[in-house]
């Protein structure tokens, strides 16, 4: 294919870069505001690079001030890590079962799993809430982990990869007398590890960002996750916008970090889910 003229490409790249920066201006504003003293936050024209720096005090006040921000953070790390772990484990097991174990009722059960995918989470909030109160899972982190861990999406996505494994290498193991547990742990999982990693990263991002479930299933302040925390912080701390911005930057930062590190996995995971449709 004939490549475009390099001069044109450079020009378009420059224009796109400008557009891209304009696109993330809200983020740049957020970061910049989190570094400023309060009175400079809304100064116009906008000082993108703060004239007066107040970053240290802002972040110190957010993290070690009146709000238990560090606790919210810890709660989020705990819930997110457990959800990611449980979800990856349960989804891989189910994916293996639905692809390489030939048991009775497999197709019917798989259709059932797919059908649950269509139910919007908002539609079942009330009964979930009731069941959780009944099981004493309401207002616990365990309940939140369970809600986030069982989704048909993981089963469906990982099943595609397990199906892609060559049957010969699994059969060879079976000839040698290996049972399903052994084949799963020693052969199948290591082979689809990249796919499991992709799913785990996606699940991590979704759980970290989850707002609706903590809102419904948690009540105690000391259990709140970061998303509840910053919203509470924003609506209660009134006019300290520089602090609010320091809080939102702190909440978004781990995700940006994960995204930059696991960029390839995230993008491939999203693209794969999308293109396969």
């Amino acid at each position, binding site marked *: *294919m004939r490549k475009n003229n390099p001069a044109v*490409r*450079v020009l378009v*790249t420059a224009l*796109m870069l400008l557009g*891209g920066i304009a*696109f*993330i201006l*809200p*983020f740049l*504003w957020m970061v910049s505001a989190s570094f400023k003293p309060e009175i400079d936050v*809304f100064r*116009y024209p906008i000082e993108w690079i703060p004239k007066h720096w107040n970053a240290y005090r802002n972040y110190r006040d957010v993290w070690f001030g009146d709000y238990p921000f560090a606790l919210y953070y810890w709660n989020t790390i705990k819930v997110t890590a457990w959800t990611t772990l449980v979800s990856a484990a*349960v989804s891989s*097991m*189910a994916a293996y*079962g639905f692809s390489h*174990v030939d*048991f009775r009722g497999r197709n019917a*059960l798989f259709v*059932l*799993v797919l059908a*649950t995918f*269509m*139910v*919007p989470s*908002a*539609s*079942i*909030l*009330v*009964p*979930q*809430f*009731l*069941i959780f109160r009944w099981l004493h899972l309401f207002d616990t982190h365990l309940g939140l982990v*369970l809600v986030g861990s*069982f989704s*048909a999406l993981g089963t469906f996505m990982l099943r595609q990869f397990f199906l892609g494994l060559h049957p010969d290498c699994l059969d060879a193991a079976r000839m040698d007398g290996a049972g399903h547990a052994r084949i*799963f742990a020693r052969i199948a999982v290591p082979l689809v590890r990249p796919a499991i990693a992709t799913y785990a990263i996606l699940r991590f991002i979704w759980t970290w960002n989850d*707002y*609706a479930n903590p809102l*419904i299933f948690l009540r105690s302040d000391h259990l709140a996750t970061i*998303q509840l925390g*910053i*919203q509470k912080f*924003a609506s209660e701390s009134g006019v300290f*916008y520089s602090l*609010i*911005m320091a809080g*939102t930057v702190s*909440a*978004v930062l781990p995700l940006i970090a994960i995204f930059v590190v696991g*960029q390839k996995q*995230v993008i491939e995971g*999203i*693209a794969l889910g*999308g*293109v396969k*449709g």
Partner: protein
Amino acid sequence: MDKRTDKKAGKRRRTRKENWAGYVFVGPMLIGLTVLTVIPTIITLMLSFTDWSFIAGIDRIRFVGFENYSKLFGDRVFRISLQNNLAMLLVVPVQMGIALVLAVIIDRVVYGKSLFKVLFFMPYISSIVAVAIVFQLLFHPSYGPVNRFLAAVGVKKPPLWLADVHYALPSVMIIMAWIGIGFCLIVYLAALQSIPGDLYESAEIDGARAWTRFARITLPLVSPTTFFLLVTGFISSFKSFDIIKVLTEGRPAYATSVITYQLYTTAFEDLKTGYASSIAWFLLGCVLLITLVQLYGQRKWVNY
């Protein structure tokens, strides 16, 4: 015992073992989904035919037939919320169009593809709560940077954005599009990469111009992706809740209320469990309808 029955018994034993192995592997997921999704779906359906508040205790449940559903269509707030949901569907094709144009430029012209992927994808991976708080400040009617800028360039009465009945919903829609563009872009880029380059080459030799190549090669070949994005976009648009809850809480005057938000307030603030359940089933019905259209349309719409 002859050899054949011996073999058969062996096979039966293996089948039973295989069955057990299968149930052990899929068991945890199935139990979880049953308790957390299947049973709640059925309970919601049953509750939607009752007049009940969950704080009142189970013995106070009263069966009212289809009353909740008939009340739904006379409910002004519900009608407004549904209209808002339908208006918000407009976001989907708009963000897809922008994303496709960006994807084509990024795929074919620019240097440093992955930088652009990261830039445009950032809103999608950021938390909606953080995004909503930032936009609340940016679009603040009196001292937000957006209106300060408009005032500076001479706009006499800049809109109040999220606080204005007429501008609130469009403002929310702009933010939703901003969040969603990255997702569509990534998916389109993947689709573009699977189009063989020699198609364009031969089209170019035949003298096809850029626009013709786009309309005759790119568009038809990404049509499955377009269809997928449209359907999933519609579904997630119907399901969106976080952004409304954090950004506007349906204000001003229900101008940004949506079905999920009304469902939430009915269930957890007004504590009308029965009525909320009928809203929940309406929502489920909408999503189901879109999914059925997808299953049916997948074959018809997609044109190679």
